[in-house]
């Protein structure tokens, strides 16, 4: 159940993102392309923060994580997405 995964609270208390990517103002799929390009910049197990305001990001970030095997952690604030590199 994707929706349940999305609603899961961000279980990274105290942990800070190793990288923040800001794709506000860019239309999908550009934020997802940027994410795919930069995910290798953080070590496995690290948390990455993505800022995106295209409404498609809310659906596409978790779907991309699912397809590529990364952990989607949630959306702590609207338009801010956290994920953990596998």
């Amino acid at each position, binding site marked *: 159940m994707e929706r349940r995964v999305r609603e899961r609270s961000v279980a990274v208390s105290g942990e800070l993102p190793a990288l923040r990517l800001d794709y506000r103002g860019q239309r999908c799929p550009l934020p997802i392309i940027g994410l795919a390009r930069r995910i290798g910049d953080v070590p496995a197990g690290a948390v990455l923060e993505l800022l995106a305001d295209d409404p498609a990001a809310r659906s596409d970030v978790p*779907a991309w994580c699912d397809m590529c095997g990364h952990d989607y952690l949630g959306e702590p604030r609207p338009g801010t997405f956290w994920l953990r590199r596998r």
Partner: protein
Amino acid sequence: MLSQRPRPDLLGGAAVARPDERRIDAADPDRTRWADARETVWNEPVTKPVAQLPQHAAGSAGTRSPSGPAGTYLDWASTAPLHPVARATLVAALDAGWADPARLYGLGRRARAAFEAAREQVASLIGARADEVSFPASGTAAAHLALLGTAAARQRVGRDVVLSAVEHSCVLAAAGYATRDGGSVHEIEVDRAGRVDLSAFTAALAQPGVALASLQSANHEVGTLQPVDAAGAACAAAGVPLHVDAAQTLGRLDPPARWDLLSASAHKWGGPPGVGVLAVRTGVRWHSPAPEDERGGGRVPGYENLPAVLAAAAALAALEGERRDEAVRLTALVERVRAEVPQHVTGVQMVGDPDPAGRAPHLVTFSCLYVPGEALLAELDRAGVSVSSGSSCTSSALTPSHVLVAMGALSHGNIRVSFGRDSTDADVDRLLAVLPGAVARLRDEQGARGL
């Protein structure tokens, strides 16, 4: 009022005939002007737009081959070319069935008899009685009438609407409209396949104040069949009328068994555009949301589109004999797409139920990572392949498809491929021949090669 009263200076003149006595003949200058106007209307503005359209051979042969005038048409879930039976019936009815079916002279009675026969035919094919069926101008109008008429009749019971989160936008819009003065819309979540959570749906029905429920027979974007019969049983137990939107399955699958109101659209099964189907079970409380009108059985105001209704009914009846074999044939085409597209294109997510038994037979949806859906649609169009997309950039609202979002599916790079009676393996071959190159070009353009 004043203008209708004869002016005193005209009253005495014997040469001035009263308007209703004036004979219209060839010498009448008014008639000449009218004839000129008719020439202008029919020869100029009508034939010019028609000339823009692809010139098809008779029937729907235009969609048949990649080299045909319509190229490879893979958007049958949006609309189907006219079924040959519908075309023959339409042409015959335009010439013979033009009289007013509400009039009592012979021509009118014959038109009425033809209309009633078509209504009987459609009713028997959807498991209804003839007097339960009427024909609004579209599937959208039928869905609007189904929801608004039921909501209007059940205001004292409640104002809430229960439906799945993946209903067609016309159903969601009608539910929003029905609850605009109070009441709320309960959108029930779907699983990853796009199937509504039946226990949540049932639980929502038990809440006080539910006026009606609505559920599609199959999803229009991903093909997932909904549990309409189980939902119908739950609705009956809760005493809530159920509207079933059968637009994607009528003419393709058995009609749903349990419904209180049903809507569908003829152009999706190869009937002409301009014909929707609205069925309201006897005993279901329904008040017209429009002013009363003596036509349309009190449900659909206005003059009946008799030729189009006859053609729509004839096509639906013709499909009854072929649809079971067609479902098997089209399922095989869909299975090819589901199996072979991921072999030719990396980063593809197949959307919807992987089990063919859980899907409508004719459509398949997938999303290609890192590709804008609109650009992919345009690339395929340049290669002569017509498909549709649920990606945000292809919709006027610039929001992703609410269906894909509700399913948690990838919403960009989305393509819906749908088949119909002219579709063959050659169409799948054509899609598979052009899709990998189109995706690769667009990924290159986006700088997404090798991701």
